[in-house]
């Protein structure tokens, strides 16, 4: 109690220092007066009485300071003093301070941005209570890929005791129709009825699924997502209890999920998982499985238990588990983001760390260059009694002040960068990856601020170290003490900055080249006239291939009738997309020759006309091709060249097969090759080559998900409204997916590369600018210090070029070393980016050469100004100043 009172009193004294000083002054005055009175009474003359009184009381100044120490917190007050001093100093050197804050803001901002991405993607997890306890469970196939589980298997996994529960789900697309709005394509999740309870979230309206909803034959029910409910049903609570149609089948709305719950990813509706007949087989693996660990269990125990169960499953059902080798238990982020996403984000984080290191190195250089002047001040302080600890504290306070200002500005930069990033990436990662700064990011920025403050705050000590105070004072602030050490350290830092800048520039350059390569990709067709639109024919109303073929033929006719449209076609493979890869083998291949993967594309006879290309051999499909008994195919030139080298493929036969034929399963029928088409890209342009492709008649492979492809002589965008009208005239219930030009489609494909390249470019620009500034600062400083020397040299007859060379030579040496190390770094960056590179390799000589040249030019430009200043030195002025 007493201690607390004491502390409070001292703290109050801190803030009321002025009042207390006055109070004490008054008290002392009254003491003096009384003492003087007594002295007079004892017979002293008034003047002498006052003098004696003052002597008795003691030195007023010392009393005041002792009084302050006794009543307040002396350590804290001297801290405030240091702070005030640091503040005054940063205002005095405001340009230096502003530069340091700005540089740190860039570095900390970039790094916090990188941290925020990692945090959002990997650490924050699902927006549900106890998100860290959720794991995903999947089978692993022979190639190490994840395989979903079947319903039967899930039921067995659910016996595991290390889990609170396990739920299965399956994401599918469906069409939603009702009386409220035009039909639309939606994300539907089929989920076992325990799903929401396991995730710990319930509906905000209506009820959750019950176990009965998942029973076979139970009335179909559906839960709407909050955004769908707001958007489509105007937040009408009365929707609960009514029926809507999903893929044409009625389902009763039983609830609206609470806001923010879109599991697994932007789900619009959830329906209970009721296994269809074919889904009741053990090998019918279609369910993703999520589990919540029991409170007392860890991931390892959970994995061990599931492994035991899965091994039992594998030994009990060897045929059904033929394709799998084991199970995998992992965090939700690892499961859903993993692979490329993880790599890209990690690389970004590393790149931002580079930017931060470069920024801090810059600040250290600035402070080192100034430390000559500081050394004198420090020596003076030491001479008048400042302890070493006090000096260190003083330096740290100064740097903390600057770096926390930098961190605050950096946070603002990071917030903006994260927002821009969020807008640019769109729906790249699952819904629960929210690109935003949270308290962790704030803590991170603060921690980085403090860490950098320690690093650059103590830098001036390098020059103070071991220096004799008197020397420093006599030196007149020119700071020769520690000069060699400063020079070495700054040179090393500049070299390090240059190499990191080059590594970043390398990444940016390679990505830029990839984007260029992607833009230049030749699809084999003129894309400027093509418009496409996805259509999915609901199974309920287009149950047979014939009904779908009929629709295709109707829509082609209707669209072709629009003025300005040349031709239209229905296909599963608009350029740069395909209708799926399948295994193909050719008649006459030797026994044991493995089938190969080729792109397959279902087309109608108008396909090649619409693309504006003609067959190079054979003939096009006819209207009746693909009907039973007419098994035909058209191959592309690449396939012909690869598998029929020097032969005429027309009339030869091929068929589709699968890798492991199940007992009783036969490969597809042989089909005769009737034509050879020019190469058109049906694979990712990022592959850099055109796949072997087989075209089959749509009549035969009448998929429900198709694209309408239109060739128009008018501006492609201008016919879109008419196209929409015609399609709706044919079937008002068809969900509409916005038509796009093929160009937009391809630009969309390039999006991630562009975004990634832009981010890298931004970092590279910052890095190069900062390194150039460092080069400039170091050389300008060297020139300033060597004024006298240059003056003497000039006086002794050194020519201007000689003087310039004297300055440039060490600068060039720095550049050379930095570039050499940096190029190795650039290649390493390129390797790390391997999956993102198109048409270039990590060691791309053009990119590397370009970077080396760029950096050399920038480096020379940065050193040229100070070098020229050296050449212009006027010997007379300099020597007089000496």
């Amino acid at each position, binding site marked *: 109690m*007493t201690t607390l*009172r*004491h502390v409070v*009193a*001292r703290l109050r004294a801190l803030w009321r220092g002025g009042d207390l000083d006055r*109070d*004490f002054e*008054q*008290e*002392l005055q*009254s*003491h003096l*007066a*009384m*003492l003087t*009175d*007594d002295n007079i009474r004892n017979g002293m003359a008034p003047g002498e009485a006052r003098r004696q009184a003052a002597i*008795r*009381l*003691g*030195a007023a100044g010392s*009393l005041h300071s*002792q*009084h302050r120490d*006794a*009543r307040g917190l002396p350590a804290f007050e001297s801290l405030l003093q240091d702070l005030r001093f640091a503040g005054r100093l940063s205002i005095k050197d405001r340009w230096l301070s502003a530069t340091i804050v700005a540089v740190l803001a860039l570095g900390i901002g970039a790094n916090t941005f990188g941290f925020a991405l990692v945090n959002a993607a990997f650490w924050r997890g699902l927006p549900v209570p106890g998100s860290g306890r959720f794991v995903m469970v999947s089978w692993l196939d022979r190639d190490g890929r994840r395989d979903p589980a079947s319903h039967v298997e899930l039921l067995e996994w659910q016996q595991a005791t290390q889990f609170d529960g396990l739920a299965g789900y399956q994401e599918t697309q469906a069409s939603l129709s009702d009386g409220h709005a035009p039909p639309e394509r939606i994300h539907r999740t089929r989920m076992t009825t325990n799903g929401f309870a396991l995730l710990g979230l319930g509906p905000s309206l209506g009820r959750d699924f019950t176990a009965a909803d998942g029973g076979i034959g139970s009335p179909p029910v559906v839960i709407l997502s909050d955004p769908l409910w707001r958007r489509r049903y105007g937040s009408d609570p009365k929707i609960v209890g009514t029926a809507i149609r999903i893929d044409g089948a009625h389902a009763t709305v039983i609830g609206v999920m609470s806001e923010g719950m879109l599991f697994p990813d932007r789900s619009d509706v959830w329906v209970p998982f009721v296994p269809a007949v074919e889904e009741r087989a053990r090998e019918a693996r279609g369910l993703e499985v999520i589990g919540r660990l029991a409170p007392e269990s860890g991931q390892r125990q959970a994995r061990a238990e599931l492994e035991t169960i899965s091994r039992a499953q594998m030994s009990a059902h060897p045929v059904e588990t033929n394709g799998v080798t084991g199970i995998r238990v992992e965090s939700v982020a690892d499961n859903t983001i993993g692979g490329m996403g993880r790599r890209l984000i990690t690389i970004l984080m590393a790149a931002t760390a580079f930017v931060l290191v470069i920024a801090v190195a810059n600040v250290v250089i600035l402070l080192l260059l100034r430390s000559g002047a500081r050394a004198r001040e420090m020596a003076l302080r030491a001479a008048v009694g400042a302890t070493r600890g006090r000096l260190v504290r003083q330096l740290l306070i100064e740097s903390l002040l600057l770096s926390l200002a930098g961190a605050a500005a950096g946070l603002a930069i990071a917030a903006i960068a994260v927002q821009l990033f969020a807008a640019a990436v769109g729906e790249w990662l699952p819904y629960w990856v929210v690109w935003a700064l949270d308290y962790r990011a704030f803590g991170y920025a603060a921690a980085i601020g403090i860490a950098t403050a320690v690093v650059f705050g103590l830098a001036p000590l390098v020059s103070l170290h071991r220096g004799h105070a008197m020397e420093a004072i006599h030196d007149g602030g020119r700071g020769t003490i520690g000069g060699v050490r400063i020079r070495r350290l700054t040179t090393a830092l500049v070299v390090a900055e240059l190499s990191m800048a080059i590594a970043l520039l390398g990444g940016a350059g390679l990505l830029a080249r990839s984007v260029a390569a992607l833009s230049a990709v030749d699809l084999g067709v003129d894309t400027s006239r093509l418009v496409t639109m996805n259509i999915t024919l609901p199974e309920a109303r287009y149950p047979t291939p014939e009904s779908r073929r009929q629709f295709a033929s109707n829509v082609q006719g209707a669209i072709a009738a629009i003025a300005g449209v040349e031709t239209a076609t229905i296909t599963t493979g608009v350029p740069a997309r395909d209708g799926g890869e399948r295994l193909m083998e050719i008649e006459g291949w030797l026994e044991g020759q493995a089938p190969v993967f080729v792109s397959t594309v279902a087309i109608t006879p108008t396909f090649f006309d619409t693309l504006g290309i003609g067959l190079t051999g054979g003939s096009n499909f006819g209207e009746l091709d693909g009907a039973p008994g007419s098994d035909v195919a058209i191959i592309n030139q690449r396939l012909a060249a690869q598998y029929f080298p020097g032969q005429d493929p027309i009339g030869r036969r091929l068929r589709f097969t699968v890798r492991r034929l199940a007992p009783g399963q036969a490969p597809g029928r042989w089909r005769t090759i009737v034509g050879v088409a020019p190469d058109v890209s049906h694979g990712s342009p990022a592959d850099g080559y055109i796949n072997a492709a087989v075209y089959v008649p749509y009549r035969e492979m009448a998929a429900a998900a198709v694209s309408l492809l239109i060739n128009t002589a008018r501006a492609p965008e201008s016919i879109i409204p008419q196209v929409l009208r015609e399609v709706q005239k044919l079937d008002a219930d068809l969900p509409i997916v916005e038509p796009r030009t093929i160009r937009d489609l391809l630009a969309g494909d390039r999006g991630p590369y562009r975004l990634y390249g832009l981010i890298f470019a931004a970092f590279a620009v910052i890095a190069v600018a900062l390194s150039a500034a460092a080069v400039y600062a170091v050389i300008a400083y060297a020139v300033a210090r060597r004024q006298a020397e240059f003056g003497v040299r000039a006086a002794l007859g050194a020519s201007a070029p000689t003087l310039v060379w004297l300055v440039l030579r060490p600068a060039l040496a720095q550049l050379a070393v930095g570039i050499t190390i940096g190029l190795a770094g650039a290649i390493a960056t390129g390797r790390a980016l391997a999956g993102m590179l198109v048409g270039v390799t990590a060691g791309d000589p053009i990119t590397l050469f370009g970077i080396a040249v760029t950096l050399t030019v920038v480096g020379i430009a940065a050193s040229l100004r100070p070098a020229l200043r050296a050449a212009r030195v006027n010997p007379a002025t300099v020597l007089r100043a000496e």
Partner: protein
Amino acid sequence: VADDKSDILQGTLDLMVLKTLDAMGPMHGYGVARRIEQISEDALHINQGTIYLCLIRLVQKGWIDASWGTSENNRKAKFYAISRAGRKQLASETRNWERVAGVIGRVLQLAPKKS
């Protein structure tokens, strides 16, 4: 540097100030200083300024209270009065002091060992 020596004095001064205020009732700083000097018959010549450091310490510990008032000669002065916590402290300190003083006294009376 001076702290080592003043530690004992400080504790003693605290005790003397508390006792003075306890015995004499509320007093101003000058009065306390005078009183201690008189009692010690000027054997203890304290720097009067140090009294104030002692007073502020005691106020912070809550053992005495301070308020502005008017002196017997009509001067404005700050008056200090012992608080309840101060009386308790004084009692325990006094006991403590007597014990220590007793021990020291006995130690000092030890006769030198005959050799």
